[in-house]
């Protein structure tokens, strides 16, 4: 185990791309964060409360209202509606004050003060103040709670309510991006933890009106909300048995909006009257193949590059995503559409001869068996990709066995970590951060900030360069570092990026003000329905 510079590690903790499927929100752009010491509340227009939004999601409904139990990306949509944080995310991925009015920090970046709004109340009318902030932060820090936010904030050494509306954080080492990390700490009513999972009492714009676990959740405006009144009479989140019935319900207008529909339905959505496909401003979500870089054969970068060359990404984008994704032929965590993408990267263009040669060089003989592991019923695209890879690998004598497991078996395979996964290739979807430094930090594995499913080896030279990039003010110079980082990633290929794709979201034209963040999560806070 390498020991890293603490400062670096803390920064990374906050930065590290959050995990797949968990709605990732991590931190935002370094530049934004560094000077975001003051902020203003975003003024929303006032409006009459009309319209009921029906929001469909497939692959499991909401089954627990406690935001610290981070088990499904599907639930992330309710977080900003029920549980605001001290800060909130904007469409470009930066954070601005939400429950806080402003913040300041000491010169050494180790002490932070946050000032609260004075009129904040929970949905049940109880006053929200600095003590609630402290209680929430402490709860998220408690390892027994298992909060997904913990690893982003675990360098907080003390948190104290200085006055009723002022909280002081002391950190173990400097961090410029505490406001970004604190976006992940969702404020809930912790006075009665046992009721949290079922009642969902928070200070957000909406509150729970009706809740059938795994099926429907109806939210209505919170009368005690401190901000402008939300514009919808209600939001109902309806679990769909599968994506086909979700698209069917959307087309027959039983749903106003659907999240994460498959590319095979794009043409059907486009052919639906008054339907639009909502896209994020930037895409930082990617379909990837993960391998365990601590176990043979993929502990060898040559074997990983071999795999990368054996991936026919163009065919995958064509067959699995029907063209609705950008292939990452040069295996970069940065999307080819991003200005930060390094256009000079050596391409891993599909080349079976090269793959065979590299596999042989890495000591992988014909007849070797790999396993391709994917979740059943979740993303049919993964199975299509698996079959393309399977067919191509067979041509060079390698057997790829595709295995699908139901979600529980799937998750059980990787937990509790750490485990070893030789010969395993895992198909997943990563929500990376939009800022290049953060997207690139996704290569970080094997340290405390391990985000992946499978173990990875630490890569100190890469880490220090990511950190270095945070402190470079000149955009051109910074881009130089991004280019070098991408080259290193391309050479090491810690995981294989197939293509960048946003979560496909469709809505009827009457729905206004809903947006998707670059990490693929929907924001309905300011959504309304215009007849």
């Amino acid at each position: 185990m390498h020991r890293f510079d603490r400062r670096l590690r803390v920064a990374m903790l906050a930065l590290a791309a959050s995990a797949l499927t968990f709605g990732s929100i991590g931190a935002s752009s370094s530049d934004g964060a560094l000077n975001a010491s003051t902020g203003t509340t975003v003024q929303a227009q006032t409006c009459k409360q009309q319209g009921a939004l029906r929001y469909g999601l497939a692959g499991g409904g909401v089954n627990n209202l406690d935001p610290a139990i981070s088990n499904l990306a599907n639930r992330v949509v309710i977080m900003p509606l029920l549980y605001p944080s001290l800060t909130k995310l904007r469409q470009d991925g930066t954070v601005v004050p939400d429950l806080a009015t402003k913040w300041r920090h000491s010169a050494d970046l180790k002490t932070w003060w946050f000032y609260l709004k004075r009129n904040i109340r929970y949905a049940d009318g109880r006053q929200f103040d600095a003590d609630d902030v402290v209680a929430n932060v402490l709860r998220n820090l408690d390892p027994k709670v298992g909060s997904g936010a913990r690893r982003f904030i675990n360098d907080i050494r003390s948190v104290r309510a200085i006055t009723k509306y002022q909280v002081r954080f002391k950190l173990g080492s400097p961090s410029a991006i505490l406001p970004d990390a604190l976006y992940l700490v969702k404020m809930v009513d912790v006075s009665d933890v046992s009721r949290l999972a079922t009642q969902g009492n928070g200070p957000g714009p909406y509150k729970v009106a009706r809740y059938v676990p795994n099926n429907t959740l109806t939210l209505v405006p919170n009368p005690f909300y401190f901000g402008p009144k939300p514009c919808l009479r209600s939001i109902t989140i309806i679990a769909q048995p599968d994506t086909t019935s979700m698209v069917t319900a959307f087309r027959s207008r039983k749903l106003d909006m659907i999240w994460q529909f498959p590319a095979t339905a794009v043409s059907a959505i486009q052919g639906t009257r008054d339907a639009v496909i909502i896209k994020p401003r930037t895409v930082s979500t990617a379909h990837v193949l993960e391998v365990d870089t601590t176990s043979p054969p993929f502990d060898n970068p040559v074997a990983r590059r071999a795999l990368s060359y054996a991936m026919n990404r163009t065919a995958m984008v064509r067959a699995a995503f029907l063209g609705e994704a950008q292939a990452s032929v040069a295996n970069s965590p940065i999307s080819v559409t991003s200005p930060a993408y390094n256009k000079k990267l050596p391409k891993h263009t599909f080349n079976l001869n090269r793959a065979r040669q590299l596999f042989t060089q890495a000591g992988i003989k014909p007849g070797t068996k790999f396993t391709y592991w994917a979740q059943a019923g979740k993303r049919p695209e993964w199975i299509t990709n698996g079959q393309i890879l399977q067919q191509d690998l067979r041509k060079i004598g390698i057997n790829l066995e595709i295995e699908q497991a139901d979600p529980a078996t799937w998750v059980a395979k990787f937990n509790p970590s750490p485990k070893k996964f030789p010969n395993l290739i895992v198909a997943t979807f990563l929500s990376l951060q939009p800022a290049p430094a953060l997207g690139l930090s996704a290569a970080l594995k094997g340290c405390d900030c391990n985000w992946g499913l499978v173990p990875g080896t630490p890569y100190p030279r890469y880490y220090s360069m990511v950190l270095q990039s945070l402190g470079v003010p000149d955009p051109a110079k910074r881009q130089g570092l991004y280019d070098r980082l991408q080259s290193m990633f391309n050479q090491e290929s810690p995981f294989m990026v197939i293509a960048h794709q946003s979560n496909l979201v469709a809505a009827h034209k009457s729905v206004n003000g809903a947006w998707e963040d670059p990490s693929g999560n929907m924001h309905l806070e300011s959504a309304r329905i215009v007849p």
Partner: protein
Amino acid sequence: MTEVAAMELPRSGGRRGETILRLLRRPAGAIAALIVVLIVVGVLAAPVLAPHSPTEFDYERLFAGPSWDHPFGTDELGRDLLSRVLHGGRTSLWIAALATLISMVSGAVWGFVAAFRSGWVGEMMMRAVDVTLGMPVILIGLVLVAAFGSSILSLVLILGFLFAPATARLARSAILSELESDYYLAATSVGAPPWRIIFGELLPNTVPVLLARASIVAAAAIFVEASLSFLGLGVQPPAASWGTLLQIGYASLYSSYWYSIFPGVVIVVTVLALNTLGNSLQYALDPSRR
């Protein structure tokens, strides 16, 4: 045919030959038998009959509709669906056949033992059967697939296990009715050795009943495998069963309306034919209808 059978199997053979005749005389039974034979032959001859390779990709023709070249259209990787359905039938029918065999053999043995052990052992054995019968098949299927995975082998074992209890119950009642029959009483009274009565008379006489049941179990196995596949827990690629084809077709409904139709129709027709065959067999075997 009757004569040959009658010569070889002097006493009960006449009964069996008659059964087949009586089965074929019913049009539904005859048609069903014909369809089953056609499907089995078609599927076995898949390598010869299939117009294309079931695994050959064609990225230029994804989700194509029916055409002369591809009568059933193509799938998400441009593979010929007719060939996929023919080859997929091998997986489906193999699973169904082996599962049926397992359920018939284990169920029959269980039922026979329970029938001969009329005391509390037999009672317990039948109560165990009742316990499993009392739970929804699809639910146990789900739980078992979650527990043992969905490789073809585990699907075979799981489906075999699912249908064994009902078979056991049937086998037991079949034997019990034989034990009450006149010829059994006659045979025992003349002092024929018990093993000869059992293997020479009792078991052969229950075979037709079990055959009728086997046909229905095979249909049910195809049915349940399709249902599990629909929930994403069936046969894994590149192997494809009719169930998985139907499921993928349904998931791609909005790219190709054709995809799911053909596997769906094939499943329904096969199950229909097997059920009808089983029912006709039962009907033909029922002594009260003679």
